[in-house]
Every structure is written in C-alpha cells, then in structure tokens.
C-alpha cells in the first residue's frame, strides 16, 4: 500500500506540454471530422484566394447564353447575365470569407476585451459588463442587424461592422469563464506577487492560456458571420457592388432562376455556403471538445446546460 500515487493531473499536464501550434495540429490529426473540416475550409480558401488567376472567365464578362446549361466549357452552367457559375462561385466565396473573417475580427476584439476585463478584474466590472452582455444576448441578432443595415444603407463595410458588433456576446462569456479560472492559478498569483502589472499579467500569462479557446471560438463565429451575411444579402441589404455568395443566391432568386428551371444558378452557391459553415462547425467543435475536458463526453454536454441556467442569467456560468 505504499505505492506513490501521482498527484491527479500531473500525467495530463505532461501530455499537454507541447506548444499551442502543436496542439492545434494534433487535434486536427486525431479527429477525422476535424481534418475533414479543415480540408474543406482549406480548399475553399485556396480557390477563393486564387480566384483572379484560377477563375476560368472574367467576373463581368458574358461567357455564354443567359441561364446556359452546364456543359464541358461551363461545368456549373451560367447565371442570369450569362456569367460562368464557377467563376462567380470563386469570387463569391472570396467576398463571403472576407466578410466572415472581418466581422469575426471585430467581434473577437469586442468580445475578447469584454471577456478578459470581466474575468480578470471580477467584482463590479464583471457584474456591469456581464449585465450588458446578457441584454445583448437576449435581443435577437438578425432583426437588429436588419434594422441597422437598413438605416445605415448597404455597403460591405457596414455589414462587417453590423455583424461584428452583434456577435461578440458568446465569445465574451466563454472567455470570461476561462480567464476567471486562469487568474486563480498559482503562476499568475506569483507574477502578481513579483510586482507584475495588470497589462503584463494579461498579455504574458492570461492571453496565452485562453488563446486556443479564442481560436476555437473564432472558427465558430466565422460560420455565424457568413450565415448572417448570406441572410442580409438575401433580404436585399447586401452591398450591390460586391458579389458575395449570399448575393449570388439572392440574384438567382430575384431573377426567377427556379421558374426558369435553372437549378444550377441557385443550388451550388448555397451548397458552398453550407460546406463552409459545415467546415467551420467541424473544426471549431473539435477544438472546443479538445480544450474543454468537461465536454469530453460530447459536444455541448448536458452538464453545461444544467449548470449554466437558461440564457441570460446574470453572473452565472
């Protein structure tokens, strides 16, 4: 009975030791669904990035008849202006991804700041910031986006800002919980005892610890942002001069692609959006699973639901 029992957690700690980059790669390698998601996202991003060189036709050149059928020269057919669908999809994905990432950047900046401040300082700061977050959480995003976009007028910049300033609540909550636990760790207390200032502690000790979670959250937020852009475009609030995937769907819908029997003008753009969102969900979900041991059983475990009360309870989680 004199076996030396390892302190719980020591073995795991040794396993987690490699850096963050390795962690991301390992998660992707270990989970087939995550590597599938990453592959999808990588291919779409590559096609979008290389659109100016890879696209078979010009974005504004009429390459064939209006609503031309799919053929060898145009594998996905032509749209209502006789523009090649493959070309359109590549350029559309480019705009959609830009909007998705830019809006996510805005939302990460706000959500990250709110979450870190609330979690790190606690007390009154925490209460006030989380109250504000709770109100934002309950007010339905999409109608508010519609209202703001309708008042400001359609432009890519406005859409990015509108989506960004409404998506940050989830990030703020998740980060706050994580920062709260990191703040109590011994090395943070030691750093404080050694006289490190708030900025130094946050930047050097807290942020590196919450960074993987922030990345997982970023990937999931990109999916929501792209969905929202597609929805706003469909309601006629997209930038008329920029062809996003949402705009392609809206265009096909407005120009009666369905009643003309031109399914190829409307099926591929939506399928591509679904594929991007699926890729983001797979990667983000896997990262979240890997990061949160409490979720080890499954994604979005019941425990989080039981402990975290219904939406918007102040000071919870």
């Amino acid at each position, binding site marked *: 009975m004199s076996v030396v029992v390892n302190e719980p957690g020591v073995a795991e700690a040794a396993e987690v030791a490699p850096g963050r980059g390795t962690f991301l790669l390992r998660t992707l390698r270990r989970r087939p669904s995550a590597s599938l998601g990453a592959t999808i996202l990588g291919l779409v991003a590559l096609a979008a990035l290389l659109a100016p060189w890879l696209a078979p036709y010009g974005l504004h050149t009429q390459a064939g008849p209006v609503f031309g059928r799919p053929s060898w020269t145009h594998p996905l057919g032509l749209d209502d202006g006789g523009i090649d669908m493959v070309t359109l999809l590549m350029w559309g994905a480019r705009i959609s991804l830009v909007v998705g990432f830019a809006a996510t950047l805005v939302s990460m900046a706000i959500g990250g700041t709110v979450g870190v401040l609330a979690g790190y300082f606690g007390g009154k700061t925490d209460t006030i910031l989380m109250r504000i977050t*709770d*109100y934002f959480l*309950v*007010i*339905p*995003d*999409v*109608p*508010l986006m*519609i*209202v*703001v976009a*309708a*008042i400001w007028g359609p432009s890519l910049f406005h859409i990015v800002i509108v989506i960004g300033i409404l998506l940050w609540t989830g990030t703020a909550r998740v980060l706050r919980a994580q920062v709260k636990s990191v703040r109590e760790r011994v090395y943070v207390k030691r750093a404080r005892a050694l006289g490190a200032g708030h900025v130094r502690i946050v930047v050097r000790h807290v942020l590196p610890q919450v960074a993987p979670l922030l990345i997982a959250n970023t990937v999931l937020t990109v*999916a929501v942002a792209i*969905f929202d852009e*597609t*929805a706003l475009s*469909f*309601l*006629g*609030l997209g930038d008329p001069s920029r062809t996003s995937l*949402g705009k392609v*769907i809206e265009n096909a*819908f407005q120009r009666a692609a*369905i009643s003309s029997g031109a*399914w190829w003008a*409307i*099926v591929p*753009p*939506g399928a591509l*959006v*679904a*594929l991007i*969102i*699926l890729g983001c*969900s*797979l990667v983000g979900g896997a990262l979240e699973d890997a990061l949160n041991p409490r979720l080890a*059983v*499954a*994604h*979005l*475990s*019941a*425990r989080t*639901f*039981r402990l975290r*009360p*219904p*939406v*918007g*309870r*102040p000071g919870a989680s």
Partner: protein
Amino acid sequence: MRGADYVIKRTGFAVVTVLVAVTLNFALFRLAPGSAVSDLSRVPHATPELRHALKQQFGLDKPKLTQYVIYLRELAHGNLGVSFANEQPVWSNLRTALMNTLPMVLLGTLFAIVVGTLTGVIAAWRRGTPTEAATVTTALGFYSMPTHWLGLMLVIIFAGTLPTGGMTNEFLIDPSFWTHLKDLASHIVLPSLTLGLVLYGEYTLIVRSAMLETLGEDYILTARAKGLKPWTIVRRHALRNAMLPVATLVALSLGYIVAGAILIETVFSWPGIGRAVYEAVLQRDYPMLQGAFLLLTISVVFFNLVADLLYFKLDPRITE
C-alpha cells in the same frame, strides 16, 4: 422563498430587457441622421391632415427627450405610428401578421423538437455505430444550410406537388370550411418543414449530448445491473433527465427561429411578421420596421422568460 426569489429576479430581468429594447428602438430610429428615418410623419402620399396629426401625436417638433417620453406614452397605448406603405396603423398591420406567423413557426418548432429528440436519443443510444455517424452527419448538414436556401431547395423539389407561395389559394372562391382548412394545411407544409429542418439539426446534436451525459450516470448503471430492458432504461431513466435541456434549447434557439421566420416567409411569400420586415426593408417603411423589430424583440424576451420559469419548474436545483 428561494423559488419566489428566482421568479422575481427573472421577471425583473425580462422587464429591464424590454425597457432596454424599447430605448434602443427609439435611439436607432429617432436619433438616426436624416429625417426620412426619424420623421414618422413623412408618410408618402399622405394628406396634410394625417401628417399634422402624426406630428401632434408624437410631438415631432419637440426636443428629443420630450419625444422619448411621448414615444413611451404612445407605445403604452399601442400607437406605433402609421405604415408608410398602406397608411394603416402599424400595430393593426403587425397583429394580422403575427397571427399568420404563429401557426407556421409553432408547427415547425414542434416538428424540430419531436424529430430532434428522437434522432438525438437514437444517436446517443447507438454510440459508436454507423447509425450514430449517419444521424449526426445529417443533423450537422441541415444545421449548416442557409435557411432561405433550404427553402428554395424544397421549392425546387416540391414544385407542382405542393403550393410554394402564399398562405391560401386566392382562386378558391367562397370555399367551405373544410376546403379552406385543407388549402391552408397544404400551404403551411413547406414553410414549416423548412423551419423544422434547420432547427432539428441543432436539437439533435444537443439532445444527443444530453443523453450521452445522462447515460454515463450511476443510476443508469444501477438500472442496467437490475437487468432492465434497454428501452425501459432510455424511456424511464435517461430520457426524463435528458429532456431537461429541451426547455433551454427552445429558448436558446429563439433568435434563430426569428431569423428563420424572416427568411422563410420571404421565400414562401407567407404574409407574416417576417415578410412584413422584408417588405418594410424594401419599401423603406421605417415605422413598420420599427414596430416589427420591437414586437420580435419583446416576443423573444417573453418566451425566454417562459423557458426560464419552465426550467425552474422542471429542475428546482438551479437556484442553488
């Protein structure tokens, strides 16, 4: 007393949220630059009398702070101004639209809850089998689809078999009650199905997780050791506890339902509140947009409160 405390706290939060939403609504529209948005009396083609009456009612020539007080007072009386599009009071327009939206949304949500719970339970019970993989993949697939695009896909698939637009067939003259009901039922299928399908994906994933968690509990092991049949364990022991999150689930997805309703009603020309939002955006009908936004926000806050209280009733542990 703890329970009463909880109820009061939640209700208080809901009331404050509504006040925040009401204020936000005022700030967004009335403080917006440009009188096209902020001036409720600029109803196109209106008689000077109507414009004058609106100016008087809402005190549009007074300072903004006074306007805010007047706005609150008029709001309490259900006065949201006049629609730019049809010169009817906004509130009466919205009431009709809301009555059309409710059955469509309820039917879709019900479908999602039933199918989502069923597939979620199957996925959890068949963990690690191809059945689980297939169920989860399908759910994730539907979850990823843009709502309006899924609606359009259903239009392509069912065009010819089911009506794809509107709420009733306008060419049915003076139909009997049953014909009317049948007509209505055939029109509601596709919009409700679209909403049901996009929601069900999310529900499946969450119910599956909840079930997996519950299946790992000690009392399930006990039930198994007692030699109970698998189905009895699922039904009597696991599902009851796993169903707790469903109340929360509906609350969590309310925002999603509202967004879905706007997109779906646009696709299917369903004359509900979502369609009203779309038309208000198209025609720059700001009073309607303002009213619809307020109504949607208040509904979401209200149903959130209902879910909170329901959850408390189901699981009193949460106040601890």
